[in-house]
């Protein structure tokens, strides 16, 4: 079937197999390897992408579901001011997630900051249970997200 989607700000029209996962479409058709493949069951959370500004698991999303939608992966998100807020926040507290979960953590942080610029520790911890990777200290993660929130607040006030 033919679908049209906005992928990282670029209109794409392509003929796909309806049973293809969004994850595989991104990785193998478009070569966007920042979205990682994990369990394919929706547990690990490594494959998060933004679909119409909502965080979704690309492994549990069929590619046809993105028809007329807007998909943002870590590759498209990189280079935006919102990405730099998060990167700066992470670096300031020396929070460095592993290469496998980093993209999902950045997008999840972005999703949290879109909801509120004052995320509580409890809310951050709860939301990050969506990513199973245990590569870093959770208290450092909370600090990093709150730092990123502070940077974004500052930038938005400056604007």
């Amino acid at each position, binding site marked *: *079937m033919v679908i049209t989607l906005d992928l990282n700000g670029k209109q794409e029209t392509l003929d796909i*197999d*309806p*049973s*293809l*996962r969004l994850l*595989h479409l991104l990785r193998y058709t478009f070569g966007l390897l920042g979205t990682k493949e994990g*369990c*394919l*069951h*929706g*547990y*690990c*959370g490594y494959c*998060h992408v933004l679909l119409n500004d*909502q*965080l*979704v*698991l690309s492994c*549990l*999303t*069929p590619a*046809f*579901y993105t*028809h*007329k939608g807007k998909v943002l992966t870590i590759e498209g998100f990189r280079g935006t001011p919102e990405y730099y807020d998060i990167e700066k926040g992470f670096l300031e507290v020396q929070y460095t997630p592993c290469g496998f979960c980093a993209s999902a953590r950045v997008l999840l942080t972005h999703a949290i900051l879109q*909801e509120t610029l004052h995320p509580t520790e409890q809310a951050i911890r*709860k*939301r990050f*249970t*969506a*990513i199973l990777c245990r590569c870093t200290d959770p208290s450092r993660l909370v600090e990093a997200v709150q730092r990123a929130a502070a940077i974004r607040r500052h930038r938005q006030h400056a604007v």
Partner: protein
Amino acid sequence: MQYNLTDPSIYMPTSLAEALVLKERHPTATVYAGGTYLLWNQAGRFLILPGSILSLQNIKELNRLGRTETRLDVGATVSIQRILRAGPKVLSPLLATALEGICPPSVATMATLGGNLSVPDRCMASFPVMHVLDARCEIRSSKGTRWVPVTGLRSPTGELQLEPIEIITRIQIPMEEWNFHVHRRIGSFSYGITADSLILVIVGKTYRGMLTEFRFALGNFSPRIYRNRDLETLLIGARLPLGKSKDLKAFLYAIQEDLKNQKFLSSHVQMERVLHILQSTLSNPFQYSA
């Protein structure tokens, strides 16, 4: 559900009217909202999809969430995460706990309440709480609209009471104030319903130390829900806390016998846990005050 090896027919309507017409023309089409139940446990490179799919994601009418003083209106394609995001001012603590237990947080951004209620072969994790809160579903077809309480969504034997041309479009949850509530999950997993899990929901109202309303329901890995309204009325009018009163003992005995007769629980452990939770809740319900 029928699966085929050829490409599935996928219909993506943009309005509810169009969706209802498509559902009438293709009654066997599987309604697709979040798709989490359909795609769960498929680890292959390609997804196995039903022969035809009616995808609801582009219908804005079904993606609305509203709250009045007396009820919460949830569109069929509103994600669990979006309902949870509404916060404590909109959601009661019981509803928030129940929704958090439906699926893991990673899946909650996609899973929908409408989808959870319309799984054909078993009652999912939202059923017991929706039962107890007396939620209603708006069911629409090209022939008209009807409202069905969640209690009537399944037959006594567990079949989903939906015509092939019908779609659940909205869920209405009454926002009553309960003086105490309990939502417990028994089993090895924290989310959803698995073969060894059991969900127990208890709510009650009191007036001047007297039990004026009491409801409880059990859900497990089956198409049925356990709820006995006759037994619920046994304790109405009793003075709280019940402690070790004869009324409570008689009530627990009646529940035990009824559960045995209906063969609802799979083990003695589950029975003991259910009775223990009921006893501890009713002995002193104010420790679970809302």
